[in-house]
C-alpha cells in the first residue's frame, strides 16, 4: 500500500501531461462518431445495428483505449538503462508486483479523468446506458488485466535489447486495430474477424464494449468472458515465465 502511494506521487508529478492525454480520446471519438454518421448516411440502422449503438461503441472504445495506455514500457526501459532496476529488485516486493502497482496507480488516475471525456462523448458522439452492467464490469476488469499482461510481455523485451525504440509505438498501432477500437468486429469481413477473434487483443477493448452496447448479450456475454479468462491465465503464465528469465539476465549483467 505504501508502495502504491509512492507510485501515485510519481504519476501525480505528470498530472498536466496526463490531462493532455484525454484530448486524444476526445478527438478520436468525435472523428469516429462523424465517420459512422456519414456512412450510415441518414439510416438509423444498418445490418440490424442502430447508429446509437455505433456512436456509443466508439465513445466507450476511445475511453477503454485511454485506460490501457500506460507508461510501463518507458518506466522499465529507464530503470534498466540507468541501473535502478538493481535497487528495485532489492525491495521486499517482487519486480513484477511493482510494475503492476505502477499500472494500478495510472488507471485510477485515468478513471478520474474520464469525468472530462464522458460529457464530450455524450454531446458529440453518443452514450447510452449499459445493456448489462454486471457482465460489462467483469469484462472491463478482465480486459484491463489482459492488456497489462500484454504490456508486461512487451516491456520485458528491453531486458534483452536495452532499447525499446519504435516497439511501444508499434504495439499501440497494432493493438489499436486488433483490439477493435477503430472498427468493431461485426462490421469486418468474415476472414478478418476470424483472425482477430483468435488473438488476445480483441479481449481488451472489443469484448467489454460489445457487451456494454448489447451486441454480445446473454449467454454469449458469459462465453466471451470465459474466453477472456482463458487468455488471462495463458498470458499471466507467459509473463511469469518471461520475467523470471528477464530478472536472471539482470543478474548476469550485474544490474
Amino acid at each position, binding site marked *: 500500500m505504501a508502495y502504491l502511494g509512492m507510485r501515485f506521487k510519481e504519476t501525480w508529478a505528470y498530472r498536466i501531461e496526463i490531462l493532455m492525454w484525454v484530448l486524444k480520446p476526445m478527438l478520436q471519438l468525435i472523428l469516429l462518431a462523424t465517420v459512422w454518421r456519414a456512412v450510415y448516411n441518414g439510416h438509423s440502422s444498418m445490418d440490424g445495428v442502430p447508429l446509437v449503438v455505433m456512436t456509443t461503441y466508439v465513445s466507450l472504445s476511445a475511453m477503454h483505449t485511454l485506460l490501457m495506455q500506460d507508461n510501463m514500457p518507458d518506466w522499465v526501459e529507464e530503470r534498466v538503462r540507468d541501473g535502478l532496476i538493481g535497487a528495485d529488485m532489492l525491495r521486499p516486493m517482487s519486480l513484477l508486483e511493482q510494475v503492476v502497482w505502477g499500472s494500478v496507480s495510472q488507471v485510477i488516475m485515468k478513471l478520474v479523468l474520464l469525468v472530462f471525456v464522458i460529457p464530450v462523448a455524450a454531446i458529440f458522439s453518443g452514450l447510452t446506458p449499459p445493456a448489462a452492467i454486471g457482465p460489462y464490469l467483469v469484462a472491463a476488469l478482465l480486459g484491463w488485466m489482459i492488456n497489462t499482461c500484454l504490456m508486461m510481455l512487451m516491456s520485458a523485451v528491453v531486458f534483452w535489447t536495452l532499447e525499446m525504440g*519504435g516497439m511501444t509505438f508499434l504495439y499501440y498501432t497494432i493493438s489499436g486495430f486488433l483490439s477493435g477500437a477503430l472498427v468493431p468486429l461485426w462490421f469486418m469481413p468474415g476472414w478478418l474477424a476470424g483472425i482477430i477473434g483468435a488473438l488476445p487483443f480483441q479481449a481488451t477493448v472489443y469484448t467489454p464494449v460489445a457487451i456494454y452496447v448489447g451486441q454480445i448479450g446473454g449467454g454469449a456475454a458469459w462465453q466471451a468472458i470465459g474466453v477472456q479468462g482463458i487468455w488471462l491465465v495463458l498470458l499471466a503464465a507467459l509473463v511469469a515465465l518471461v520475467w523470471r528469465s528477464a530478472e536472471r539476465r539482470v543478474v548476469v549483467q550485474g544490474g
Partner: protein
Amino acid sequence: MWWQLRAAGYLFSGAIRGMAQYRADVVFTVLAGMFYQVTTFLAVWVILARFQAVAGWGIKEIALLYGMRVFSHGLWVLPLNQMHQLSRYVQEGTFDRFLVRPVNPLVQLMFTRVRFNALGDLLGGVTLMIAGLCMVHIDWTVWKVIYLVLGVIAGAMVEAGIQLALSSLSFRFVKAARARYTVDDLFNMFGNYPARMFGSVGMWTLTLIPVTFVAYLPATVLLDRVGAEGIPSIIAYLSPIVGPMVFISGYAIWMSRLRDYSSTGN
C-alpha cells in the same frame, strides 16, 4: 545563404555517421512508421468495404486523399523532426550553444542529429497516393500535374509552419511540446478524411485551422469535385498558395520568439 547550406552539409554528414551505430533501430522505426499508416488506412478500408462511400467519397478517392496527406506529412517531418528535441535542448541549456555559432539556429536544430523515422510515412504515403492516382479517373492536363506536385509540397508547408510556430512555445514553457503533439494528432486524424463529412460548421473550422489545405482541398481540385463539396472554388484553387504563407508566418514567429529567448542559465 551559401554558408548556411555548407554548414548544414557538415552537420548532416556528422549526424549520419553518428546514426550509423543504430542501423537496426533505423530500419525498425521506418517499418513501424509505415505500419502505422497502413493499419489506420486499413480501418477506413474495412469500413468502406462494407459501406461503399463516406460523404460521397469512395475508397479510391479516399486512398488518393489519404496518400497525399501522409506524403505531405512525411515531407515535413523528415527534415524537421528534430523539433521535438527543442524543449530538451532549452531545458538542458544545449540550445545556448546554437546561438553562439554563426549558423542559423534552426538549421543547427535540424541537422545536429537526424532521424529517418518519417521515411515510413513518406513511403507509405507515396504508395497510397500512386495507388489512388491509378484507380481514380482524372482528366490529366499539364496544369493538374503541376498542381499535384505543388499541392503536396504546399501541404507539407502548412503543417511545418504550424508546428514551427507551436514549437517556439518551448522557448518559454518547458512542457510546451505536448501542445504540438496534440495539434499533430488533430492533423493526423482529421486531415485524412473528406472534410464535407463534418458538416459545414466542421468543414469551415477545419479550413480555418487550416487542416483542409493540407490534402482535402488539393485532392478536391484534382478530382474535379470542387462544386460538389460546397467550398468557394477560389479557396480550393488557390490552396497551394496557403502553404508558403503559413510556412513563412510560422518561421517568422519562430524567429521572433527566439529573439525573446532567455537561457535557463545552465
